[in-house]
């Protein structure tokens, strides 16, 4: 009986070590090699059965149409699509597949700020040899820079989020704000004016949107990260420069004085606040109107009351355009047929029909210049904004002026630390400047732990 007990203990141990030994786990920084998941179980229908099937993970709400459009237009490759999660959950799945060297899709939808983290693990394929440069002309400089590393191109841009200021025209009118603030100083002054007259808070300094805060830091001239994939081990981190401190102090002061809200965004409470006019402005991106409409804002008693103005600047004579969000299609290194996958990545959501559906249903703000230059798009009167031609006036110029940003190889970690600092500021536990200093220390420490040589 002793033997049986021993066996029941030893056998699984041997099994596990055997599998380990078989190299089932290779956590080296090289994520290349490995097998992608099979392109079966597609949510969509395959039109040409004998074409090469490419597995795509994406979460666009209108993806079914997009994939159908692509499959109808191509006979040599077919996209097999499934929604593997939106944002972070999809990245977690992707990371698991990378670590296990199995199960990644051929083409994956990624937000621009996540690309570097996967590039450094050799999990993405450079698309330049597969025709990426042919589509370069379709995108603004900023949009292209976000997906490139020097000459290498790791994803095909689809949509973006140039930032602007959405505001409640009725509240502005009620409290005597004749024109939307053009500078941040004006913004603060307007906020005080509204509060003193007993009005609602002017905006919201939410901790769960660290991408916004980072964009605003960049707007003032901060350069949080400098990183070049060609020089893998070197990283420059600058989170405690004066620009960053100024921006965090600015918002920290507004929060402390009760001039802006402290609530997290994208919650049901926040939506209710938007509907009820709790926030006079919403510093947001071009996809915000679509999000708000879908969430039920602008449909009831708040119908027709929203308008949008360019994002306030620190220096009105030197305007800087910034971006929040946006996604692209990348090809994973686990794919068996890079050329086919690249074809899908570069072609999906790039045809007129899909793009038109995308912006007309307010699903995305497309980055493709064919849309941004088209009359339809520019002259569209957006119902959410009571007929304002927001694309022509605000969002397209903002996108064209966008210069791109540099992201760290550990965006998720960085965002989490920034989020904690903002929450602390809102709770009164720290000041903006102190938060910047602490953040710098945390990130540098982490980077060193990960083996980077930090400047």
């Amino acid at each position, binding site marked *: *009986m002793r033997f*049986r007990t021993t066996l*029941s203990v030893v*056998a*699984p*141990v041997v*099994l*596990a*070590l055997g*599998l*380990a030994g078989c190299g089932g*786990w*290779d*956590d*080296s*920084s*090289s994520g290349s090699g490995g097998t992608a998941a099979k392109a079966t179980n597609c949510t969509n229908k395959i039109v040409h059965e004998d074409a090469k099937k490419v597995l795509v993970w994406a979460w666009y709400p209108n993806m079914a149409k997009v994939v159908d459009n692509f499959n109808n237009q191509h006979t040599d490759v077919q996209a097999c699509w499934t929604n593997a999660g939106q944002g*972070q959950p999809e*990245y*977690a799945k992707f*990371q*698991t597949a*990378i*670590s296990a060297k199995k199960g990644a899709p051929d083409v994956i939808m990624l937000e621009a700020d996540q690309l570097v*983290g996967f590039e*450094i*693990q050799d999990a993405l394929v450079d698309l330049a040899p597969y025709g990426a440069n042919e589509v370069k002309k379709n995108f603004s400089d900023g949009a292209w820079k976000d997906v490139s590393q020097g000459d290498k191109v790791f994803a095909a841009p689809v949509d973006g989020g140039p930032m602007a200021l959405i505001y409640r025209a009725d509240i502005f009118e009620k409290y005597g704000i004749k024109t939307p603030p053009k500078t941040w100083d004006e913004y603060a002054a307007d906020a005080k004016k509204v509060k003193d007259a007993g009005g609602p808070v002017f905006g919201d300094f939410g*901790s*769960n949107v660290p991408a916004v805060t980072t964009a605003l830091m960049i707007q003032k001239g901060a350069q949080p990260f400098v990183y070049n994939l060609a020089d*893998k*081990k070197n*990283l420059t981190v600058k989170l405690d420069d004066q620009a960053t401190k100024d921006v965090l102090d600015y918002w920290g002061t507004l929060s402390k004085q009760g001039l802006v809200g*402290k*609530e*997290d965004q*994208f*919650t*049901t*409470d926040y939506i*209710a*606040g938007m509907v*009820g006019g709790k926030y006079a402005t919403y510093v947001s991106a071009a996809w915000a109107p679509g999000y708000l409409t879908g969430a039920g804002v602008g449909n009831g008693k708040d119908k027709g009351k929203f308008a949008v103005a360019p994002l306030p600047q620190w220096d009105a004579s030197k305007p800087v355009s910034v971006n929040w969000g946006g996604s692209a299609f990348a090809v994973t290194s686990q794919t068996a047929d890079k050329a086919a996958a690249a074809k899908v990545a570069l072609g999906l959501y790039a045809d007129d029909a899909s793009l038109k559906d995308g912006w007309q249903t307010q699903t995305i703000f497309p980055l493709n210049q064919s849309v941004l230059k088209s009359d339809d798009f520019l002259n569209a009167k957006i119902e959410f904004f009571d007929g304002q031609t927001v694309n022509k006036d605000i969002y397209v110029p903002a996108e064209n002026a966008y210069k791109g940003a540099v992201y760290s*190889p*550990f965006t*998720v*970690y960085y965002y*989490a630390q920034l*989020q*904690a600092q*903002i*929450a602390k500021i*809102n*709770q009164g536990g720290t000041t903006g400047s102190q938060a910047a200093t602490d953040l710098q220390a945390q990130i540098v420490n982490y980077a060193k*732990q*990960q*083996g*980077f*040589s930090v400047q």
Partner: protein
Amino acid sequence: MAVETPVSAGTSVPAAPVARGGRVRRRNAGWLFILPFLLVFAAFLVAPLVYAGYLSLWTKGLATGTTFAGIDNYTRAFGDPSFRKGLWFVLRFSVVVIPLQIVVALVAALLLDEITGRLARFSRLMIFLPYAIPAVLGALMWGFLYSPTFGPIEQIASFFDVRAPFLLSQGNVYYGLLNVVTWQWSGYYMIIIYAALKGIDSSIYEAARIDGATARQIALRVKVPMVGSALALILVFSLIGTLQFFSEPQILRPIANGSITPDFTPNIYAYELAFNYAQFNYASAISFALGFVVFVAVAIFMVVTRKRGSLFT
């Protein structure tokens, strides 16, 4: 609790050789009965566990590759302020939530065992229902119920002209979670105790009643001790589960305005490390470190209740 027939009772069977053969056959049968379980256990618990343990001995940097780290990950884990902070929270949370859940469950089960009729049947379902509600709904549901904008707490408070507390704020999140967990899990434990109560032969109650015991006395002096094993089981697993606290705080994070941090509990911290920061090796070490703490806690519990030898019998 059935009286365990001592092994020697086997000898009361007439022929000695048959008895011995019978005992051996019986023992082998025992292995056969647990075999299916052992197979799944080995495949889905032991093998991954050993694998994870093996991985926890290595370390991976984003810029460097994977290198052997020995116990470095563990020394780092036990000294990690995030780990310690999370540990402190689950410890002081366990101390309150476990007795609370068990008491509620026990009271409910005893009541349901005593009372029959429609109220009892309805209550049984109602108390069980929270466990059946999928956790994914939790964030939305508690988001509305705890909402300072349109929650019932807020409405009641405004009726009395008082500012309603936000139960997931920095200071209140302990209580907010206490409520969520008690609500979610008491029914689960109640069902278990209830089933154990239903297994008791009711003739014992007759005897007690003849002796003049009241219903309450029967409940406390007869029923509770007879479900002692089930209670001990629930206590241990509740302890393990609470120290490994993950689901409820993780689900409520989006609506807690930042008071539930990525290192709120050790298990959440391990999850973040593994899935969001791509640091699976260190995450494994954190998990095993937590497992060690759980082991110590359970060991202490067993010593304190003197169940060292035969747990659950």
